[in-house]
């Protein structure tokens, strides 16, 4: 009842308010939809799209498909190391030349790795150059702390 009376008395301003609201809502919806659909997708899919178009692309010194550092010997590492395991296993590790050599030897003895031939030296040089051992000591300083306000 109340509503009907309200409508009768205010038909004109009411309809213009409706029209205005509709325009505003449509515009807002458009913006929200745009934000939801365009922005995150664009940022998220940039890397994968680039990988899809050029799997061997190198950006900021990083080989996008594998995550390996670009440098002489990287191709040999991809060829010999990544058929069985991901490059992520390589990238995590730090060893000196003797360490890498014994790791390769262990994989040949027990994990079906083939003879690397002349590439073995190239691979070891790449790994020790791009992923050098650094001294950490008995306890490192806490790193990469993401600070946030805590309400308890």
């Amino acid at each position, binding site marked *: 009842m109340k509503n009907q009376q309200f409508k009768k008395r205010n038909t004109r301003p009411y309809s213009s308010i409706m029209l205005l609201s509709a325009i505003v809502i449509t515009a807002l919806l458009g913006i929200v939809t745009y934000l939801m659909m365009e922005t995150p997708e664009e940022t998220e899919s940039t890397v994968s799209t680039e990988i899809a178009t050029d799997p061997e692309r190198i950006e900021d010194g990083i080989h996008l498909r594998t995550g390996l550092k670009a440098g002489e010997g990287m191709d040999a590492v991809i060829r010999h190391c990544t058929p*069985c395991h991901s490059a992520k296993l390589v990238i995590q*590790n730090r060893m000196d030349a003797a360490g890498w050599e014994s790791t390769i030897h262990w994989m040949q003895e027990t994990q079906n790795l083939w003879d690397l031939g002349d590439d073995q030296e190239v691979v070891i040089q790449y790994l020790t150059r791009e992923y050098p051992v650094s001294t950490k000591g008995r306890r*490192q300083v806490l790193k990469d702390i993401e600070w*946030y306000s*805590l309400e*308890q």
Partner: protein
Amino acid sequence: MNRRGFLSRTTLAALSAAIGAEVFYGAEIPSGYQLIIEQDPDLFSLYHKDRDMVLLNDRPINIEAKAHLLDDHVTPEQFMFVRNNGKVPGELDAGSWSLLINGESVRQARSFTLEELKEQFTHHTYHLTLECGGNGRSEFDPPAKGNQWTVGAVSCAKWTGVRLRDVLREVGLKEDAVYIGYHAADIHLSGDPRKEVISRGIPIAKALQQETLLAFEMNGKPIPIIHGFPLRLVAGGWPASVSGKWLKGISVRNKVHDGPKMESPSYRVPCRPVAPGTEVSAEDMCIIESMPIKSLITNPRSGAILEAGKNLRIKGHAWAGELEVDKVSYSIDFGATWQDCTLDKPLNRLGWQQFKAIVDFPGKGYFEIWARATDSRGISQPMVLPGWNPKGYLNNACHRIAVKVA
């Protein structure tokens, strides 16, 4: 196997479970065809892992939690670490699954279907702490080879199954039995079907403990694929690598089991302490058994900024391998002084225990909260790295979180 050359209904069911959705035209998939999601899967959705979990390696799959993700008393699937040595088996059919018990020290080899195990033996449920032997490896100096786990390769879920000892007694052991070794369905990274990926084991005394299970449920549901569906050996308190996933066989041995990853240096540490970086010969390396005393502050997340004058509630878990945790203390002054935390009893032996405390700060500034647990034999966690070992196992140094009072 299937005359029409399409996927069987059970394979399809396993596939749907893995993807988390039904494959609509599943019946039309020719056998041998790999769905796009299988060829290039989003591992997090495929295996129901939280997006904040850390992917260390995707081939083989190795994923760890962060300390604050492990706040639950019972670790849910999405926060449970994954340590794989090989590829996840493709065909996992609970209906046709069987377990073969054999080896020199059984009276007669015998096979049980999963259904027979469930029907013939009493079910038991335990909360069991499983920690990767290499948890904390990333801190060692000189660095140790392998996945660089930080703190999150530990879990304590609720496992349900039958006791291994009930099954072994039914089969009958010879008097010379000293060890058991497991055999599993995972696939070698090289794809070589003749190569066993990992086949570790435990001494017979550990195998006969009441909490050592042939488990078929985790947290009240069938074990998730990535954690060993449909059958897993679960032996809490020891390096999680003895808890073989996708279990197909148990060999009862009259000597220390000699499967892959039992040999030095895998899951072994120097029998006597060595200086960092020392080369240790195989005969001087000893198999890791019970895991050492350890604790983790799971709340708050490191990096909290507090208002001055407010106190801080902290909580977390502590565990001690075969032993119980007797005490947990915390320090806000890098170990100069320690205060006691409140510590709960475990829900059962080999389950982790909860600690909590209310921390007061003397003023504004940067603080670190260190937690240190002590086991029932009076052994505490070290504040710095424990003894160096070639493979970077057993790092049980105190866990720390950073706090600012502003």
